[in-house]
């Protein structure tokens, strides 16, 4: 090759390399890079068909991705399987292939109608995928030169690096896009958060208003109470108190009342308010001090824990009631009953005694005059019943006022019960009922520590009560030792009681068969069980309904301490406790 021609060729090569490299350096997408590459090479090297083929390792196919010299339809159809293709072979051998007059079947069918005179196959490696092959065809009698191959090869290397850069940039762009998406997402979340915050703030305002209104309603409600109320947190800090509390304590409404002030005001040796509150908050137990002297007033103090829905204790509510008036009224009533009963008993005793004497002294006369006899007997019977009623009232009055005197001594329970059974046999025979003692259980029973008369009165009450509600069968008495106590069971085959009726037992003026709101005045005062309960309690025992089934009968029981050296002390302690408990009922 003459020197000037060689120089021209070199310059042309440099020119092409420079220009195409410059163009490729400026493109940012794969399609444009491939198009520039193919068209520039075709234009500069008089190539009639230039096709850039991409080999896809994933699905094993090849596809034209840029080209010149084929129609668009032909370009779209330029595809096939990689395996066994000339492109696969070129890429695997990794070196350019020049062919003159290629044999039929070597090149894809889609370009078989071209009279291809010479071919250059240029492999283009890639970091992504399997790679590319540039297919260059000339349709005229002009073979590819080694120089063509070298220059096109350098350009192919440039394309490879360009595509790798673009893919990297695409990846970077993708990452940036993802980042932007995430930033947008965060911005959306921020907006949503702002909305949520605004919503929460609105709810807080609404809720605050609701709480304020609820507080006003609550304060109005507690202010309307006659009972003083103090509500505290668990740390005894005051949540609220009402006007009644200030009034009861004689304080101005402007004075803030807390537990410390309350304790100071109610200072008494009879109870420790702080300790009671502490215990209430620790164990959840209520506390109730029924009578607290406060100047010339008597107060009742009640405390209860404040619990959440899940039962956690978060504070204490203390209710203070001025019971001065109630106490005065109760004492007046008791005194009235006592005085009235005493005043009634004297004439009644006289009526009973005189009518009894008339029946005895004028027995023969009265036999002849039956109507007169019945009238006198009626007077006598009424007097007896009235005396019983008056006695009940007197007993009740004495018990409630703590004025009933108990004379304790070791008592044979068996003897007491036998005497009562014996006395009442007449009544039972008239009703065609049995009354019996389960003797084995009474044998060798230890003596109990009791007031014999009161004990007898209790047994009378229980047997008499059972007799009232038993129409068939009868009553059986049993006894058993239970530690330091003897338990006596009164078992009847009477009507029994409904569960509702059972709840009403042992209340003042309450008959076993009655409802809470109605009573049968022909069946006694309804004080029998109540008095029995107070008496048993005074003697250190308890009274209870063991069981009761409608139409099958009931089982009542009472306990009484066994007489020992220590019994008197125990009785005093227990009876005090029981009486205190009863007085709260």
């Amino acid at each position, binding site marked *: 090759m003459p020197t000037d021609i060689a120089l021209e060729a070199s*310059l042309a090569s440099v020119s092409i390399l*420079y220009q195409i490299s410059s163009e490729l350096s400026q493109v940012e997408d794969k399609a444009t890079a491939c198009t520039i590459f193919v068209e520039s090479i*075709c234009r500069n090297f008089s190539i*009639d068909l230039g096709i850039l083929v991409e080999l896809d390792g994933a699905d094993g196919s090849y596809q034209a991705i840029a080209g010149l*010299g*084929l129609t668009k339809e032909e370009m779209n159809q330029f595809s096939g399987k990689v395996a066994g293709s000339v492109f696969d072979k070129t890429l695997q051998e990794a070196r350019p292939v020049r062919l003159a007059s290629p044999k039929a079947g070597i090149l894809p069918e889609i370009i078989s109608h*071209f009279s291809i005179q010479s071919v250059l196959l240029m492999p283009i490696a890639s970091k992504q995928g399997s790679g590319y092959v540039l297919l260059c065809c000339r*349709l005229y009698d002009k073979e590819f030169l080694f120089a063509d191959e070298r220059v096109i090869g350098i350009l192919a290397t440039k394309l490879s690096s360009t595509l790798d850069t673009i893919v990297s940039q695409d990846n970077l762009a993708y990452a940036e896009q993802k980042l932007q998406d995430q930033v947008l997402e965060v911005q959306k979340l921020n907006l949503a958060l702002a909305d949520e915050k605004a919503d929460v703030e609105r709810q807080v305002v609404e809720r605050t208003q609701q709480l304020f209104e609820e507080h006003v309603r609550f304060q109005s409600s507690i202010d309307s109470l006659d009972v003083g109320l103090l509500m505290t947190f668990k740390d005894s800090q005051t949540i609220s108190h009402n006007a009644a509390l200030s009034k009861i304590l004689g304080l101005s409404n402007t004075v803030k009342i807390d537990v410390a002030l309350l304790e100071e005001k109610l200072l008494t040796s009879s109870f420790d308010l702080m300790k009671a509150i502490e215990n209430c908050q620790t164990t959840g137990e209520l506390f109730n001090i029924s009578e607290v002297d406060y100047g010339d007033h008597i107060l009742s103090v009640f405390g209860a824990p404040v619990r959440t829905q899940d039962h956690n204790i978060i504070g204490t509510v203390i209710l203070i009631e001025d019971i001065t008036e109630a106490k005065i009224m109760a004492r007046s009533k008791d005194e009235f009953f006592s005085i009235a009963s005493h005043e009634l008993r004297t004439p009644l005793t006289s009526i009973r005694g005189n009518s009894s004497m008339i029946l005895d002294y004028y027995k023969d006369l009265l036999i002849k005059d039956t109507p007169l006899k019945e009238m006198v007997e009626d007077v006598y019977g009424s007097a007896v019943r009235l005396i019983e009623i008056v006695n009940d009232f007197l007993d009740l009055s004495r018990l409630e006022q703590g004025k009933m005197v108990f004379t304790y001594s070791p008592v044979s329970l068996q003897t007491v019960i036998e005497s009562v059974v014996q006395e009442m046999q007449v009544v039972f025979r008239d009703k065609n009922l049995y009354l019996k003692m389960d003797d084995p259980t009474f044998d060798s029973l230890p003596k109990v520590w009791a007031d014999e008369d009161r004990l007898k009165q209790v047994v009378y009450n229980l047997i008499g009560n059972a007799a009232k509600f038993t129409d068939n069968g009868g009553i059986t008495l049993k006894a058993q030792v239970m530690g330091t106590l003897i338990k006596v069971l009164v078992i009847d085959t009477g009507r029994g009681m409904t569960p509702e009726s059972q709840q009403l037992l042992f209340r003042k003026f309450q008959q076993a068969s009655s409802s809470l709101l109605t009573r049968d005045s022909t069946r006694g005062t309804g004080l029998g069980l109540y008095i029995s309960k107070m008496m048993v309690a005074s003697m250190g025992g308890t009274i209870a309904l063991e069981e009761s089934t409608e139409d099958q009968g009931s089982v009542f029981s009472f306990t009484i301490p066994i007489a020992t050296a220590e019994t008197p002390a125990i009785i005093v302690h227990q009876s005090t406790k029981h009486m205190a408990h009863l007085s709260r009922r």
Partner: protein
Amino acid sequence: MATTAAIGLSQHVGDSYQAGIEATHTAMEKIANPVLAIVFMTEQYEEQAATSGIRSLLGDTPLIGCTAPSLIFNNKIYADGLGVAIIASDTLKVTVGLGENMSQDAVATGKSLGSLLTASTVPKVHPKNQVLLLFADASMTKGVVSDTLTEAFHEFGSFFRFFGGGSADNLHFKKSFQIINQKILTDAAVAALIVSETPQGISLMHGWEATGQAFVVTKAEGKVVKEIDGEPALNFYMNHLDKDTQQFDYSQFYAFASGHPLGIPMGTGEYVVRDPLSASLEDQSITFVSEIPENSIVRIMTGSKESLLSASVSAANEAKAGLEGKPAALTLVADCVSRLLYLDDQAETELTNIRSSIGEDVPMIGFFSFGEFGIEGGGPPALYNKTCGVYVIPQ
């Protein structure tokens, strides 16, 4: 019958319609049953009237053509003339088509030309036998003819070769027209798809040679080169040619610069020539007849009347050789208008040489063009400057 062709000329400037009839009539005297008519006319003619005159005789025979600074008719040059070539054939298959609005979207214009393919049934024969004859408006400074050519090539593929030239007025650089059937268009491309049974001959050569060192076009926009080697283009160009930029009479720029075009080296060793058309003192840019891509390596070309004449003879011989022994029926020439100016009194010598090479009995018609289109030695079509293009249709 195979293929025959005849040409007719009119210089009847006063009556364009009559001129069209006259030229067509002359041609038709020699042949019958035309399959394609080609017309070139200078700016003195009223295009629509002239075309109507032609079609009054040709009827629905497909017609394409364009306006030009000067007409080539056999071995003569006419600055005021209307030439018609009529081709009759029972073997040629001809379809005509057009694409408009080149200055707005040159790619879309090229794509429109693709409709020619769907309008014709093109056999799968060798591209030597299939030629797209194309005339496109080259007068718009913003129009990028290369884009139209490339897109057309995408549509047609390598099964077609291209030949043609850019239409222009008489160096006023204002407006040119393209003709297809009865339509007179501007800012358009018109084309005829000519398929023959035997190879057709095409060759484009310029005769310019590179000289001196190479430079890089560092900033360019279409046809406007703004910087060379990083310096203002005009200053660089003039300094390199030892011209005093302050004293130079820029009204004579084209006359001077047409003797010093730029060449872009191709891989084949050939140069694509770019003809400097005008200079701007304001921004120191140089506008060329055709676009120069940014980052192109260029060299200043030099030539002589002898080298240019020699190139056109070579082009003629190569085109004739392309017929592969078949006699020629018609020779079409697209010769750069700058060659006319440069060769001056020897311009007709170039045509005489071409005609002698192909055959004195072969009618020859053509025009002086603003850019020549074609495929030189294979590959995609290119837009050439200062080139002589010869296209020979076989009998």
